[in-house]
């Protein structure tokens, strides 16, 4: 896109800064030229008034002075318009280029003086004023929406925007690849947890240690769901290894599960149990309602899922001896 040419506004927001006004076309070549052999004597770079550790450019200098004197320094992040500088500098105003003088005086540049080269140069100045290099046009000054705060939150990625438990359970609720329907069900489940009366956990089936008070659960439905799932998630699964017991008999071997595997098993159990229930009402949210009620049942210790978990853990305990056999076998 060609740069927008606005010759009246070109000098309006001209920043004074020590940057090359024309971008180097082939920076690679420049680097080769600048390369210096180790044996050569180190050359002193010629230093100008605005280079090295000396005083910064006009705006930086003003900022430094203001900082020392305790005034509000100008924003260096944005270029200071020349007009502002000239407003407080009468000498500069007198010696300013004709273009700027005309702009300040309100006089209009005649069209005859605007040759193609002039327009090109004005366009480049505009680009510099906008904070970029002369050869590349910059649309606006600064950032329209600001810079993001770092570190980025884990949910900032499009694919991980929801809580991991929510994503996993939603995917497990999904049937026939209908994610949207599953998400609708998920939203219903969470709203049901929000509006249902606070649960009363049973001492026979203790929840995860360190779980919040039950009265705090409804307003944190994601925590509610996570607590229910993590409380009944089994630690192990039983793998039956064929022929390991000798004579073709299978050997029960407990295998530890990872976090996602544990949760998956718990959700599968809850789903099974919810599918077996009868709907009390009618409409498309009935499955979600049964699922949500099962979650409440888990927290209150009413659900049959607890029995399944205990069974797995019990058989895992008795199969623990088989681990030793397997270890010996491996040696």
């Amino acid at each position, binding site marked *: 896109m060609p740069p927008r040419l606005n010759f009246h506004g070109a000098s309006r927001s001209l920043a004074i800064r020590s940057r090359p006004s024309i971008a180097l076309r082939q920076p690679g070549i420049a680097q080769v030229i600048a390369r210096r052999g180790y044996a050569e004597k180190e050359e002193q770079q010629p230093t100008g008034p605005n280079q090295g550790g000396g005083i910064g450019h006009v705006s930086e200098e003003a900022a430094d002075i203001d900082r020392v004197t305790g005034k509000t320094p100008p924003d260096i992040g944005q270029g200071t318009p020349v007009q502002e500088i000239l407003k407080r500098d009468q000498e500069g105003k007198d010696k300013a280029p004709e273009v700027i003088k005309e702009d300040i005086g309100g006089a209009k540049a005649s069209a005859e003086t605007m040759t193609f080269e002039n327009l090109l140069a004005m366009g480049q100045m505009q680009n510099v004023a906008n904070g970029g290099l002369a050869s590349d046009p910059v649309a606006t000054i600064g950032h329209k929406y600001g810079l993001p705060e770092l570190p980025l939150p884990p949910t900032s990625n499009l694919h991980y925007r929801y809580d991991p438990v929510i994503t996993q359970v939603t995917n497990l609720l999904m049937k026939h690849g209908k994610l949207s329907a599953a998400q609708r069900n998920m*939203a219903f489940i969470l*709203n049901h947890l929000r*509006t249902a009366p606070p649960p009363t956990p049973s001492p026979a089936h203790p929840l995860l240690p360190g779980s919040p008070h039950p009265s705090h659960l409804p*307003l944190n439905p994601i925590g509610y769901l996570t607590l229910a799932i993590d409380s009944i998630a089994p630690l192990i699964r039983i793998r039956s290894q064929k022929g390991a017991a000798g004579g073709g008999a299978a050997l029960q071997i407990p295998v530890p599960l990872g976090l996602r595997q544990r949760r998956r098993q718990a959700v599968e159990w809850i789903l099974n149990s919810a599918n077996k229930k009868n709907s009390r009402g*009618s409409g498309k949210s009935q499955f979600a309602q049964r699922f949500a009620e099962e979650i409440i049942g888990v927290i209150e210790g009413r659900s049959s899922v607890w029995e399944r978990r205990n069974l797995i853990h019990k058989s895992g305990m008795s199969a623990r001896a088989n681990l030793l056999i397997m270890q010996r076998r491996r040696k």
Partner: protein
Amino acid sequence: MATPLPLNCWRQKCLSRPFPSTRLFSTTSTKLALPVATKKSGATVKGQKKSARIKSKAPPKSTAKPPMPGERKAMRKRIVLSNTNALEVDGLVDLSREMTGSLQNHAGKVVGLEGATVDGLRAVEAFKTTQGWGLFRRPAVLIREESVQLGRRLVGVEQGKETLRVVVDGAKGTGKSMLLLQAMATAFVRGWIVLNVPEAQEVVNAVNDYAAIPGTTPTLWSQPAYTANWLAQIAKANGPILNTLKVSQKHNLPITVPSDTTLTRLCELGARDSDAAWPVFQALWSEITAPGRPPILMAVDSLSYIMDLSQYRDPDFNLIHSHDLVLVKHLTDYLSGTRTLPNGGAILAATSRSHAPVSLSMNLAITQQVERQKGEEITERDPYERKYDQRAESSLKGVEVLMLKGLSKVEARGLMEYWAASGVLRQRVDERTVAEKWALAGNGVVGEIQRGALRMRI
């Protein structure tokens, strides 16, 4: 099978041993015959199904008690207005009579609805299941720019005793039904009489009984059961006002009404006898429009249903036009400005943009009116289109149109802050989040903001 014995039997013994009805052709003893070959289980016989027969198990019968008739529907239609888990919002002021005059002081804020107003609104079925009332501690509404505008007009027509005729339109989820609810809430707190048709579909979709009213040309049709139900609704919703008003005129009614009956009682008598419902409604109407009575608000939702033919049929099996249903005619007469309310009042109609029939005439009338209000060039009727409805068009002539757009960011912020204060939105509400939700909701379409904040984004 017993066979009749032959009379000329030469052996005496046959009396006790009856002859077989058929004789075998062979004289060889049957005992010597080969036994009948039993079929092998795998062998197929001609005409028999070859495919494997899988025994289908009968589905297990549930021992649970089945739901009572109507219970499932009642559950689906249930309106929950409170969530005891949600937090009480500090500094939530209730909509009051004084406030309705100066709603601009509360623009962009959420105001609560007090108990009496909620009862009235519930009785006229102003709350809908899709509006998410069940998430908050108690019902509250956002005062937006259009609410202020409409509130000011309502107060104006009350003082000037004029009739306000407004059609509320806007895209899906922009809060049209909610604006009707706000208008009704305003009317309740200002002591108006409120009549609401919560869903125009129910009036025209031929699920209620109907009868021709004798002596009308063209024939008008009444809906006794619906009218009776409506009268009960009116009595319940406006009880506090109608209780103080008494029958003051002579009416020719099919039922006997004692002379100083309250209007609530009159409604209840009409509701009890559906055949008398329409005459009683007419009597009620002449009573409440008599001089010195309070203003009236009539509200209709899903307008396009009553801007076309209804589903009812006349004896010639032609579809009856909606405006020939006397209940609809009552509303459209006021909407078109043919009749006016002598004590002041308003008729508000909201369109439905999600699941309603397209009424070309209504859409055209709305477009033209919006252009007229903006002073733009007016769209003409499509000359090649045949589906325009002349009666619908004339009924909407000169109706003011209130076009709803998305919320402003300030309003969106007020709403989201209320959600956060209720503990339902667990997010920091700052300029950034508001701008994000606002932009994702199609520049502040309020239903979409709610969907994104309270339903989808979880």
